[in-house]
């Protein structure tokens, strides 16, 4: 039932009240609120202020938002009233961010290290320095590398970014002459993209047409808490439950699972078996969506348990290889067999499969990182996404969708600004070892195409392929956010000169030689991002809605500019020339004379087609000023069936070279010709076989099965005998990735994560298991894995299955601030970091950092 705001307002009792829709998603112009405090002759109400548009980067939804500013202060947050992604609403992260911009531990001046010794708990002896001294030092250190002919020994580590990333990530690094621009991307989701690419040809996250779904199968994530549609899904879940079925696959009870009709608590890492069993039911019962998959030529279903089927008997439509997939991986995975492997009851597997098929094609199989970010997760990600193919929901009403286009400009060519040294050295091998035999990282089919952020530590420690001498990191904290976190402490100790651009003195900052106070992206930075939710792509601005309280730096634009100026003083003007000449104001043609102008011109350059009247679809915006005021642009709704008719892949010929984007067969692939080509390409590069590559990458199967979604038993670090519990890591709905833990509200409301307790960092355990260990609720415990130990609190909870234990990622900071850490000066953590427990491991085919799939065994002791 819809609660109509206007109905209520009509009934409002206040005499002379005016309905000022300044508080939520109306479609009026942003209310200036100059006439605030209207009630009772101005004695009642909000004092004057203005809602200003920006973007939240608390998670990867990148919600267009508005911030209420009174007297130059940010005081409240809501969704952008024009947003078709979040309908003018934000999730709890939006409100929480006020404690980040006004965080008493923010770095307010550039600082330098005075203690050369680096390590956790060692005081770096930071002292304030001028901006000039900071940039002179950085430029000297970097130019020394060029002088020595080794610019590759400079590395840029990128964390959370905006689309102004091109400037610091590509321009600085490549013009300087290093191949080492490293993105954090592989830390959270590359295996998920792998699953989508090697079935439907998208290296990216799917969108979901939830308004029209009749069945939603959520797999390994919690869409009302995280993933890429949070406010939209919060708004819709209740209605979806009323008109459709929601089933949630997650080894522990999550928020969506708590409300859903079906919860399938599988054993961690057995996702592939469950997905294949669902496929088995759909195929053996003849329930697949024939308009998409096709049918047997004579209409008779030959998919019988265990039976090999003749491929020529089936005529496919939009898909490729359904029979071969059945023969290679599905025919023997009966619900009974899967029930044994997964511990999900047979009848539930059958019920869910039939329910999905009955709702076809209006089915959204929502694949999250839990299904994918496993040691052997590449194939389970494919298996889960293959279900979308079977029920024909790909690009379909109520199903999964690719993103509509955001007509942003591409980065201007920079080749002309690279000297010979830069040209040569920026093509050297990267420090993360991507594309080596053991790390295929097959982004979009290319060996070594993907980033392997967490392997950078390995490269640094082994000085392989060489040593890193100068590094810059921005909006990142790999010492905290990478599994096997302690490797990063050692790696950072080894880097002779490190610059950190950051809001807070984070764990990574403790290893810095120069620290630059970063702008808070949501409140203080001008830049833009693109994203999609709910069928609509968006381009949204992050804007300085308040004046910073001290000088801060826009990491992605100010830093390159200021560095460029210093390089020019040292006889290397290439970088500043590129920035000046290639990013002229698109309206006036003026060249920037300072960092602030440059930032604005660059944002205008990239976004111009959304406000200069040239964009054919989407919102019509009359000029830059209006774009800044609105803060965002919506695309048209993503059309359905855009890739049906053999458009899941496309061959392109460029410079006489043929390549394919998307799937090789141009169809939705159950038998992945695309993966076959990629694996054979990687094997060929290393003069070996695909089977050898698979073994090297910790996979078990050999032969043809490597090219279809199939089941691989979970890989686990630590024996069951020594480490009896399987650890489950997941994201708190209050996490701004790792950045909200210095906010007191985070702890106050931590109990909004099911099974969690406020002001504690709890490991959830089933009461039966706790009983066996003699543990009482609230006991202080030590949790140990092969990688390390943490201390936290035990909480008994029935939402977790026996044999497994779960803890939300987020706490365990030993730096970052007074609230986040227990003792900042001594490097003592508050709670425990899951990344200390989880060892470093990789889903090697995608390059993804492993977080899920039950790969960490732990033991628990009372303290």
């Amino acid at each position: 039932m819809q609660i109509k705001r206007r109905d209520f307002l009509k009934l409002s009792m206040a005499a002379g009240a005016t309905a000022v829709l300044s508080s939520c998603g109306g479609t009026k112009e942003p209310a200036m609120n100059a006439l605030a405090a209207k009630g009772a002759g101005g004695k009642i109400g909000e004092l004057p202020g203005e809602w200003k548009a920006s973007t939240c980067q608390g998670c990867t939804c990148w919600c267009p938002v508005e911030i209420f500013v009174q007297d130059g202060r940010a005081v409240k947050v809501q969704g952008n009233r024009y947003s078709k992604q979040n309908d003018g609403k934000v999730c709890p992260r939006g409100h929480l961010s006020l404690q980040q911009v006004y965080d008493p531990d923010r770095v307010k001046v550039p600082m330098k290290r005075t203690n050369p010794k680096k390590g956790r708990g060692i005081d770096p002896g930071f002292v304030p320095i001028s901006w000039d001294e900071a940039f002179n030092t950085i430029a000297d250190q970097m130019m020394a590398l060029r002088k020595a002919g080794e610019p590759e020994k400079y590395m840029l580590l990128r964390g959370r970014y905006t689309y102004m990333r091109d400037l610091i990530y590509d321009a600085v690094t490549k013009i300087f002459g290093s191949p080492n621009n490293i993105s954090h991307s592989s830390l959270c989701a590359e295996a998920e993209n792998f699953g989508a690419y090697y079935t439907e040809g998208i290296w990216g996250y799917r969108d979901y047409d939830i308004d029209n779904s009749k069945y939603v199968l959520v797999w390994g994530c919690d869409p009302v808490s995280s993933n890429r549609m949070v406010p939209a899904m919060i708004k819709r879940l209740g209605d979806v439950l009323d008109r459709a079925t929601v089933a949630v696959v997650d080894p522990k009870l999550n928020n969506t699972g708590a409300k859903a009709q079906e919860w399938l608590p599988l054993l961690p890492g057995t996702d592939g078996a469950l997905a294949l069993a669902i496929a088995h039911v759909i195929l053996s019962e003849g329930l697949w969506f024939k308009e998409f998959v096709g049918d047997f030529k004579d209409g008779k279903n030959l998919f019988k348990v265990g039976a090999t089927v003749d491929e020529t008997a089936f005529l496919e439509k939009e898909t490729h290889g359904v029979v071969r997939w059945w023969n290679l991986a599905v025919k023997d995975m009966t619900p009974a067999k899967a029930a044994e492997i997964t511990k999900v009851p047979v009848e539930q597997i059958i019920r869910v499969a039939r329910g999905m098929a009955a709702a076809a094609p209006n089915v959204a199989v929502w694949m999250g990182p839990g299904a994918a970010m496993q040691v052997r997760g590449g194939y389970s990600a494919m298996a889960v996404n293959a279900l979308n193919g079977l029920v024909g929901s790909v690009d379909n009403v109520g199903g999964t969708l690719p993103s509509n286009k955001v007509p942003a400009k591409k980065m201007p060519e920079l080749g002309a600004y690279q000297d010979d040294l830069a040209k040569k050295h920026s093509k050297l091998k990267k420090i993360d070892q991507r594309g080596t035999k053991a790390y295929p990282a097959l982004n979009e089919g290319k060996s070594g195409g993907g980033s392997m952020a967490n392997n950078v530590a390995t490269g640094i420690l082994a000085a392989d392929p060489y040593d890193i001498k100068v590094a810059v990191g921005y909006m990142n904290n790999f010492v905290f956010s990478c599994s096997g976190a302690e490797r990063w402490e050692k790696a950072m100790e080894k880097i002779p000169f490190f610059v950190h651009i950051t809001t807070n003195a984070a764990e990574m900052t403790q290893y810095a030689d120069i620290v630059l106070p970063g702008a808070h992206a949501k409140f203080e930075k001008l830049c833009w991002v693109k994203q999609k939710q709910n069928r609509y792509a968006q381009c949204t601005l992050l804007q300085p809605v308040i004046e910073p309280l001290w000088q801060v730096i826009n990491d992605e634009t100010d830093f390159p500019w200021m560095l460029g100026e210093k390089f020019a003083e040292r006889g290397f003007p290439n970088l500043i020339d590129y920035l000046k000449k290639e990013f002229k104001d698109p309206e006036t043609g003026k060249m920037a004379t300072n960092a602030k102008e440059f930032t604005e011109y660059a944002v205008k350059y990239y976004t111009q087609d959304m406000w200069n009247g040239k964009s054919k679809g989407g919102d019509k915006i009359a000029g830059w000023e209006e774009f800044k005021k609105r803060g965002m642009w919506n695309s048209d709704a993503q059309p359905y069936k855009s890739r049906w008719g053999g458009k899941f892949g496309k061959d392109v010929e460029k410079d006489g070279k043929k390549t394919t984007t998307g799937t090789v067969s141009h169809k939705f692939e159950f038998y992945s010709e695309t993966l076959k080509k990629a694996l054979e390409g990687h094997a060929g590069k290393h003069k070996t076989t695909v089977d050898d590559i698979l073994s090297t990458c910790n996979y078990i199967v050999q032969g043809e099965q490597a090219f279809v979604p199939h089941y691989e038993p979970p890989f686990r670090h630590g024996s069951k005998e020594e480490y009896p519990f399987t650890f489950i890591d997941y994201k708190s709905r209050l996490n701004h990735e790792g950045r909200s833990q210095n906010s007191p509200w985070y702890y106050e409301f931590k109990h909004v994560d099911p099974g969690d307790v406020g002001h504690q960092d709890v490991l959830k355990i089933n009461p039966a298991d706790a009983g066996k260990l003699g543990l009482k609720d609230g006991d202080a415990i030590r949790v140990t894995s092969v990688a390390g130990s943490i201390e936290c609190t035990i909480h008994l909870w029935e939402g977790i299955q026996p044999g497994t234990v779960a803890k939300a990622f987020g706490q365990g900071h030993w730096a970052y601030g007074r609230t986040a850490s227990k003792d900042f000066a001594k490097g003592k953590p508050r709670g425990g970091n899951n990344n200390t427990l989880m060892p470093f491991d990789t889903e090697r085919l995608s390059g993804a950092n492993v977080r899920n799939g039950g790969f960490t065994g732990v033991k628990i002791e009372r303290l």
Partner: protein
Amino acid sequence: MTQYAMVIDLRKCVGCGSCALACKTENNTALRKNGQTHNWADYIHETTGKFPDTKYRTLPVLCNHCSKAPCVEACPVEPKAMFKTAEGITMHNDERCIGCRACQEACPYSMSEVKKDGAYGQYSVISYNDEGAPTHPFFTDKTELIKGCTTSGAELAAKTGALPPDKTAYRHPDYEAVRRDNIVEKCIFCDHRLKNGELPYCVSACPSGARAVGDINDPASEVAKQLKQHKHFVLKPDGGTKPNVYYIREYAAR
């Protein structure tokens, strides 16, 4: 007679935390200290059943604006600091409050000391600001984590000219946007917004649209219609207080 009430649709609610956080940003409430939560909106969470038949729900809680409000009854001040408005809101006048905490004692939804939180079903809709203590000590603290390099709460307050720095400034004849010491505080249904035709901030901020406010005695109101259509319950129905926060529908669909 007008009686303002809130209806919370549990099927829509996902327990996300937005309403309680939004309330803190609107009403500038303090951080938990000395057993006082200072959360005008909060949650209790209930887990029932055994794995795998586990059930879980979140109940958002706030002042029930009871028709027979024991907090009003208990207020010893004349005229009362805790009183009912013509719209049925249980209102608090900051100026008249003497900080005796009789209201907190009398309220069945409040505790004089909250040791745990919603995970254990504990909350308090009335909180007390200690005598002689600053409301926001987090932002009066002068400690710098890295001397001369990082800021401090006090510096943020000084530079922004507000305490807390993210203070939403508003006016109301009965209450201040930030409480002084030695008075109690609680949800007042954002009367400073209602009086201007705006919804209470928790209602407008709720991303699921689970909350509605209106006159329950007006059959045409949304809240009255919802209660007519759905089975509903209140917290502690047997207390004789006639609470006016209603819950409709089941949180879970299984």
